[in-house]
């Protein structure tokens, strides 16, 4: 029982961070219908930012989010304005090539600048934990989960209640109609990609105290983000949140009951089952 609860809780905690990565990707897809293959690399850039803010300026990774978030937003907005806006009308494969290319430039640029060495961000609480009924809960993971939850709530509020948020959702629903209603869709795209990038960067910042950092770290998370997004329904934020936690729990429990080598199998079987019975994903609407 302890083992089950332990894996459930670890899964939920790590799933929170997955959700954050998935939400970023899903917003970008929802608004622009562009699949961002550089998503994991944006996360990696966030990790490096956090790492150097910590080692050079001694800013705690969880506090440095207030710097990383806006910076990543600007970076994402810049990428959108300069590169992605140009190919919005292009063939999907060309869009994919562009985002893959951007990802490669980011990871190899970082490798050139900081070498391929693994960087470990060690805070004094990096491996600290506390016990509840024999279940050990990692302090940094718990903090990052709390921050993720907070960010998600603010994001919902932003998308549901503010004018800009509604404009973004309108663009996601029907780009042309939104444009006819006088919404500046190019600007919405910039905001959406900025948001996506800053969420990916934040996720990077949140896991860097417990994970390791190297230039190619992004690819693992790009794949995960896809699974989460498709599982939850492309473009659905609630779906991505659910999908993230579901994947986290499936990995964790699969790892215990089927062996660590099998946990990917558990995740992908689950993924296939969802797609089989609900092809548009958990929260997805029918194809548009």
């Amino acid at each position, binding site marked *: 029982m*302890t*083992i089950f609860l*332990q*894996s459930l809780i*670890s*899964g939920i905690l*790590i799933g929170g*961070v997955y959700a954050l990565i998935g939400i970023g990707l899903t917003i970008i897809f929802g608004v622009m219908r562009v699949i961002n293959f550089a998503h994991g690399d944006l996360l990696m850039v966030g990790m490096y930012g956090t790492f150097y803010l910590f080692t050079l300026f001694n800013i705690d990774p969880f506090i440095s989010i207030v710097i990383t978030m806006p910076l990543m937003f600007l970076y994402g907005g810049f990428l959108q304005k300069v590169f992605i806006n140009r190919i919005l009308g292009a063939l999907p494969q060309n869009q994919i090539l562009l985002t893959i290319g951007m990802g490669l430039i980011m990871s*190899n640029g970082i*490798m050139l600048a900081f*070498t*391929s*060495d*693994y960087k*470990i961000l*060690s805070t004094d609480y*990096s*491996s*600290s*934990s506390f016990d509840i009924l024999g279940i*050990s809960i*990692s302090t940094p993971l718990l903090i990052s989960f709390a921050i993720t939850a907070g960010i998600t709530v603010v994001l919902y509020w932003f998308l549901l209640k503010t004018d800009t948020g509604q404009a973004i959702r309108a663009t996601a629903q029907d780009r042309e109609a939104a444009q006819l209603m006088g919404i500046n869709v190019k600007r919405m795209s910039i905001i959406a990609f900025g948001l996506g990038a800053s969420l990916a960067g934040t996720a990077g910042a949140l*896991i860097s105290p*417990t*994970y*390791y950092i*190297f230039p*190619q770290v992004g690819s*693992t998370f790009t794949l995960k983000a896809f699974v989460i997004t498709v599982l939850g329904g492309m473009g659905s934020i609630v779906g991505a949140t659910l999908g993230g936690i579901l994947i*986290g729990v499936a*990995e*964790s*429990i699969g*790892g*215990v009951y089927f*062996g*660590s*080598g099998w*946990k*990917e199998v558990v995740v992908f079987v689950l993924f296939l089952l969802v797609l089989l019975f609900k092809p548009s994903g958990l929260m997805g609407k029918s194809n548009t």
Partner: protein
Amino acid sequence: MFGKIQATALALILALPMAAQAAKVKIGFVNSITGPEAPIGENLTNGVTLALEDLKKKGIDVELVKEDDTGKPEKSMAAFEKMATRDRVAGIVGPYSSKCANAIAKLAEKYKTPLLIPVASKEEITRQNLKWTFRLSATTYDYATILLDMATSLGKPRTIAIINENTDFGTSGAKSAKDYAGKKGIRVVAEEAYAPGSPDYRSTLTKIKSKKPDLVFMVSYVADAILLMRQSREIGITPQAFLGAGAGFATVSFAKEKAISSNVFSSTQWTGDVNWPGAKEFNRRYIAKFGKEPTYHAATAYESMMIMAETAAKAGGNQEKIRSALKSGKWNGIMGEVKFADYEGYTNQNKHQMLVEQIQNGVHQTVYPPKYVSKKPVYPFPGWR
């Protein structure tokens, strides 16, 4: 026609001085320069760089053909084919990881190009009766046996938990540990193979903790080594000893994480303070040149390149001659005595003496076998600080 004659004449003129020196050789080097194994690959590259300097001093001018396999077997194979057919190298050194080395070992046979594997240690690589593939390092079996030999000489462990990465090196290391533990009368209470790169091993480790093993044996590359130890500390696993099978546990970046690396044992092919000829000097030069300590990977790559280039130079680039010279030759350098022998089902396998080091205060210290000890081992594990 005239052009052809001219070209032949030109080729002759160019070739003549080279033939006179007889010391210019073309050697291929496959390595993981980028990709997830790049941090270890860098050590191999640096080792080869030092080897080229020393070869130059000996009057052997090596034309190095470098290829990056990014840690993927198929890229390794493509690189091997390119070097064997297009570049026509005399011999090839590399690649780093077991999965890549295993993939290209058979190609060496096909293209009749001698391959010297510096450090990839999956046992099967030299167990396929391949005549053109040589291996300098000890095998994964030795990674496991030396650690268990040490543990049984220091204490009385009864149970062992095995955690390994589900790659060639990891699986092969885990299998050897299981076999040898059986021979030593140590019961295997848990076996966990994991897919590398996951941020969360807590559930697996909790399961292992509940089995209360005396020894925890891990086979992992760099980053996962740190992560596994960090999460072991979090979960509070306290065996008699943590045993790491080289790779990630032998790196400087692991040792530097004092909170989690202290008192962890690691089997290794080489240490900077071992008394093999030139080892200490190599260690010193490496630090001076690259600003960090070399791992055993660097030493194996250095020695492999030295052996391959010297042999190739002596044989004038003739591959059949290189092969028989490697087979019959004997060397004594920074990796101790080297001889490629056939024994216990192995072919062209160097019977290399493994060492055990323990991280004490952020530094790797050689603690076993007694002949090579630089510091006394701390056993059993004193608990987490």
